[in-house]
């Protein structure tokens, strides 16, 4: 990369601080993958449609391919690596596994991140609502049927855990 134009950037990702030098034009998706070594964030289209690169910015889903890394300074960034990190899969991860909600797995991190954030605010969704929320993530393998089933299952489990 071009060192002459690089500037210091401070990113807070998954609770850790990353100090790095990067050009202001570098996409957040590239910096997360190449500078922070967090390769679970996938790049599928680089124009904000496919959803594979979805991360959380201060808890809200965002396309990391539509942000520059410099823009994300001062925000709390969460990537797929924060989910299931303690050896226990998150509800969405576990349900995707059980319901065969993934095939090639390339779109999966974006779906996990998007839907975990969404379920936190939508505890008891209908199937139609799940499909609508999922429609920002393209999957070319599964036909979505099992992903939808997995999200419903994850929602149910989250509710049960809350009751406990």
């Amino acid at each position, binding site marked *: 990369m071009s060192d002459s134009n690089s500037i210091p950037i401070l990113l807070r990702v998954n609770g850790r601080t990353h100090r790095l030098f990067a050009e202001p*034009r*570098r996409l957040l998706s590239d910096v997360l993958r190449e500078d922070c070594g967090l390769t679970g964030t996938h790049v599928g289209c680089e124009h904000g449609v496919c959803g594979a690169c979805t991360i959380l910015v201060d808890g809200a889903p965002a396309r990391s391919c539509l942000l520059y890394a410099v823009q994300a300074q001062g925000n709390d960034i969460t990537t797929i690596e924060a*989910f*299931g990190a303690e050896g226990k899969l998150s509800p969405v991860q576990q349900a995707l596994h*059980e319901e*065969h909600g993934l*095939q*090639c797995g390339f779109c999966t991190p974006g779906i*996990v991140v998007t839907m975990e954030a969404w379920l936190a605010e939508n505890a008891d969704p209908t199937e139609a609502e799940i499909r609508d929320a999922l429609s920002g993530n393209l999957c070319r393998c599964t036909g979505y049927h099992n992903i939808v089933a997995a999200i419903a299952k994850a929602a149910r489990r989250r509710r049960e855990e809350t009751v406990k």
Partner: protein
Amino acid sequence: MTGTKAIGAALPRKEDYRFVTGQGRYLDDIVVPGCLHAHFIRSPHAHARIASIDSAAALKAEGVISIVTGRELEEWTTPVRMAPPIEGLQPVEFTTLPIDKVRFIGDPVVCIVATDRYLAEDAAELVTIDYVVLDPVPDLDRALAVDAPLVDESLTSNLVSRQSFTAGDPARCFAEADFIVETSFNQHRQTHAPIETRGCCAIWEQGRRHLTMHIGNQVPHPFRTQLARRMRLTESQVTVACPDIGGAFGQKIALYREELTVAALARHLRRPVRWREDRNENLIAASHAREDIARTRAAVGKDGRILALELEIVEDFGAYCFYPANYLARVVAMILTGPYRISDYAFEMKIVLTNKCGSGPMRAPMAITSWIMDGTIEAIARRLALDPIEVRLTNMLRAADLPYTMPTGLVVEDVTPRETLHAALEAFDIPGFRVRQQNDRARGIYRGAGLCCVVESTTYGSAFYKAAGIPGSGHEAGWVRIEPSGAVNASVGLMASGQGYETTFAQVVAEPLGIDPNDVQIHLGNTDTAPYGMGSRGARGGTAGGSVLLIAAQALRDKVLTIAATLLGLNTSGELRLNASRVERRLGGVWTEAGLSLADVAHVAYLDPLRLPSGMEPGLEAHRAYDPPPMTFSNGTHMCEVSVDVQTGKVTLERYLVVDDCGTVLNPVIVRGQQQGAIAMGISGVLLEEVIYDENGQNRSGSFADYLLATAVEIPPIEVISHHTPNQKTPTGSKGMSEGGVMGAIGAVPSAVNDALAPFGVVADHQPFTPMYIRSLLRGKKDQGARND
């Protein structure tokens, strides 16, 4: 025999953990120190001569290491030559990058290598390419015109392939027929659009003169053969190493020009070079598919019986042939009659070059087949005022007809089209639907029920390729090793891109060895490890790959039990089996623990070989190859319900079900997932996806905002009903599956839409069924049965 039933168990996938946690290892996740980045400058013209290329300014740009064109590549690599000895197919040859002229928008012209992808793209702005624009050939009509410019100037015309075939005496049948019914089908251009685009990383080691190519490819060994040949290397100088693949669908089979360029540059520069195409490049320049116009002519008796059938299929193959041009349409023509009893049959195929991206196989290269066949039957039913289900039944093969030799010579056996049709009709409840349809029609809601009967060609044996005039082998190879500790490793020549092979093949290997599938590791995609097989394509994985691993595992089981018999002091292994990783012995009809584990036997086989039976070679490994029957077939019946908003033209899928027979199932969860995914791809293709070229050959579908993939909102829940019966000839009893879903959806959705539109007296026969197209059919039309208030 063993007590364990691993084949057919609904096990969750072993590969999931790494994918759901973001620890999958795809191409871009491989860190290669000092790696350079390649970027391609592509043609902005559909058809133009390359007059000059000036890279001087770009070479001085920051980070730029090298800039090359077709001229350099011509020295470093050999051209592709597609010239199988097939009658009716013109041979074609082209260089690694074009030298004299470009043939489509997106044709790669210049490759820039820089220290960083951003800098490579910056430098592209500084390269000046002068073109002399030529008349484009944007469509079939222009391509076949007498004065058409030649897309490939070494050919005599744009008609790159023309083949015809006749079986029986169709002419006599047409002369004697009560009716002659003509139907047409227009299938549009589509593209695979895997969510991970193409890319590769080439590492040349000058010290040992060895190339390692990291690339997500479905067929690692045939790919290596091509890459080595075109680099003028031996196959022992090239390792193809496939990481996890983010979807392929047929797009990741051929050796593409960009990939060869990157490999050649890595060798030339003696530095690692990687390339990742962006989505625009993937949509306009990777590989396209489909785009056929098909016409059928059926000679029909009064009862709806098809006496003879003729097919004419014209396919737009784009500018370059990465496959023999006849290959895709040929399969359509070969299997067209599918589940129906038709003996007098003729086809004519024309494959045409245009100034578009080259075509290739996309999940169900023969996807249009079932739409053509069942669509023809529905046209017959309309013409004769018969029930289309009855016309299907009148012509459909019965169990007593099997094995049935199709007019093209393919033998259909172990299929159950009548059984799946009846099961689908029962599950769907047509009478109940008709009541709803009538009631809603009175309220201005137009519903339609669709049906499509599919016979899917799944696993192609070598004999099929030979008979069809398509170069290739149908065999697959695999090995299984029990290591000294009793751990089990296995490999096969297939590469996975989402099919779950690490799970299903572990199940296959585990069964004869009487072990837990979790204790079997499947190693895929590295040509130094995996045996030379033909790779993953069509629906061959389960049948060709599963079978060869079963055969290898059975051979190892026999060796293990022979050793066990010796260790136990028995004359024969006939009363021994493996179960739960231990040897069991039948005594008085009861299986009892023999005091020996699989690990004990493995230890002896490797580390204490003097205890082996006399003359037996140490170790526990088996390497086998398997060539399947000429063709195996799966079958299924697809039904769906749509509603058509006649005001806006929007088609909505309300329900979708399939009754499927794909033989012995290795893992029902994975099979169901493959069905759902294939059906979704079919639905997405019928309703949304379209590669659009304008009259100048400009591609107008270069982003996901233009090339529309179905989301979770457009795809309905998909019910999959199993009706599996084993194939008698394959070792596992499986038939193969994964493409029939596309075929069925491409036929069932039009069937439903036309049922919904029937009151208006119109027939939709041009896919995709966009709102604009449906409205164009309905404009000025009225529900002919509606009251005039």
